[in-house]
């Protein structure tokens, strides 16, 4: 190979490599294939506290460091909820939403996404508080009645989805209701 042919080849290869680099830096890709829309449920909800409290026995207190000796310990957390979703009268979700956090004292977070074909759909969402028994909470030794559970949140509405459109249903704290948020 002559020196000029080699140099030409070197430049051609460098140009081709650069072209390849540029091409690979902009490869068309569809992150969400198809033309489907989506029903997205996303909200943060602080449910009522459900606790089982009891007094510690002197023996139990003696085992604790001085600065940790509280007379009463409470176990439990925020009340869990049941999330049920129907689309066109077909159930698509039935889950228990539990409070986040090690002590179950963080709010309940809902984030569910359901791909739907473009067009009209009937969506029905029911967010129901679970009772202490279902929530597997302890009993109140002092016989305290747990606070009354809030009424279930219900959302029923027709959705007309354009291709790739996201219908967001969220919780409106002021209205205390599930609402559809529009962009």
């Amino acid at each position, binding site marked *: 190979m002559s020196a000029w042919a080699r140099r030409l080849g*070197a430049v051609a290869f460098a140009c081709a490599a650069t072209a390849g*680099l540029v091409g690979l830096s902009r*490869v068309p890709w569809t992150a969400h294939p198809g033309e489907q829309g989506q029903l997205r449920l996303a909200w943060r909800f602080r449910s009522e506290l459900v606790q089982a409290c009891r007094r510690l026995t002197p023996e139990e207190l003696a085992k604790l460091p001085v600065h940790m000796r509280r007379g009463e310990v409470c176990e439990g957390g925020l009340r869990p909820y049941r999330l049920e979703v129907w689309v066109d009268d077909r159930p698509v979700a039935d889950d228990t939403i539990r409070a986040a956090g090690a002590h179950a004292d963080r709010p309940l*977070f809902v984030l569910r996404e359901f791909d739907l074909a473009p067009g009209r759909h009937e969506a029905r969402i029911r967010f129901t508080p679970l009772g202490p028994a279902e929530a597997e909470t302890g009993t109140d030794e002092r016989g305290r009645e747990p606070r009354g559970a809030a009424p279930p949140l219900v959302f029923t509405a027709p959705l007309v989805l354009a291709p*790739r459109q*996201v219908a*967001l249903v969220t919780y409106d704290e002021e209205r205390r209701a599930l609402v559809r948020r529009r962009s």
Partner: protein
Amino acid sequence: MSRFAGRFAGAVRRPLAWADARLNALYRWELNPLYHSGVLAASLFAVVLITGIYLLVFYRIGSPYASVARITNDVFLGSFMRSLHRYASDAAVVAGLAHMFRMYAQRRSWGPRTLAWVSGLVLLGVLFVCGWTGYVMVWDVQGEVIAREGARWMDLLPLFSEPISRTFVGERPIPNAFFFINLFAHAALPLGLGVVLWIHVSRLARPVLVPPRLLLWGSVVLLSLASVVVPVTMAPAADVLRLPGRAPYDVFFAFFLPLTRPLPPLVVWLAGAAVTAAVVMVPAWSRAKVGQEPPPSVVDETLCTGCEQCYVDCPYEAIAMVSRSDPADPRSALVARVDADLCTSCGICAGSCAPMGVGPPGRTGRDQLSRVGGFVAAHPAEPREVVIVACDRGAGGVGALATFDGAAVYAVSCAGNLHSSVIEYFVRAGVGGVLVVACPPRDCWNREGAKWLEQRLFHDREAELKPRVDRRRVRLGYAAEGERAVVRAALAAFRAEVRRLEEAAAEQDIDIERECVEDYTAEQAGAR
């Protein structure tokens, strides 16, 4: 190294050798970009830093997409800088991966090199995180998809009081704090890269951080041209209430999206952890089997003169000069001492030691002399024949052969390990010539073996080839593992030269004979 690991490393070395040979043919070994992949990655990152500082001046976290659009369309040099920033980042990833692949394939990733391997992985990881945060900064479709995917993974970890994914569901506007943290990570992480880079090269005696000028500026010019000819355009803006459609994605940074998006986060974490562990553990599973590790160099204090040449030549700073164990010894106050934990057993110290007092057991200068004696006895020297001294790693793979094109092959573990006395031994034994074939200097598995050998043979570097050795009978050539044809051509050219030398010597002998005969005849005639 396990049998599987050995086979795997061998298998990945073949395509590397093939690519090296092709690129050497085009660029010569001096400019082969594969040989400079590590320093290219570092240099390209410098380009990314410079262009990034320019872009940062115009970026606004309150309106990320709009500000990037303004940079692209209105700011002076904005489009060029943004494009160069992107392309240099992509090229840095390619160069970094090529460097990593090379180090693994050549089994330069374990023992004392473990620190460089692990810190190199950290560098690569930080580069990826910088890239991801950079794409999120733009807040186009790709940025949104990367952010949502990252949030999906992070939400599996019990670290955050609220799921991060909620940020991107459209329930509320994305807070500026998110873009601020993202920008902070994007800008702050590169500052830490300097420290990791220092760690990465901390065990090297003379780290090279800049590629040859032509290669560096050639790369910058090409990427600049690409930035002008094919500038980066604005992809559709992120819209969390609209599912992302077809958009351009950067394969170098967003390669994982098609793989991970269909998978649950737990599977992604497990797969990611498995891949990361496998790569991080390369030094463990690619190392030599216990008992088969190449032994570190040792110093024979009775021979060491304290000249410091091995200390200077060691590419890994594994040799220190310390006080003699016997202070009364009149030879020198200091002697060399090898730190076995830092020694890669390259044997370069053996080639640097004139009195042959240092080197890995079995490969010191004295060991080499006794070995070459046996070799010459087994291969009687022929005046016109050439002996090939080949590095057994590169050199066209010739080092693994007993003979090549009729020439006897004497293999050495590294050209830098070769003691110049071995060359002298061959020449004085009567061979026509000694062709030393080393790996190209930028591809020396022990970094500086070929460089030091060249200086020892032709530039009087200790332990130099003695002046009494006819340099015309010694030739140094470079060939990569896949360049057997280069060795063949070098051998043919050197043989022709040796033949001419022999013929000239023969003619000189004839002339002397003729002169002697003529003188004798004249003397006889005078006597009569």
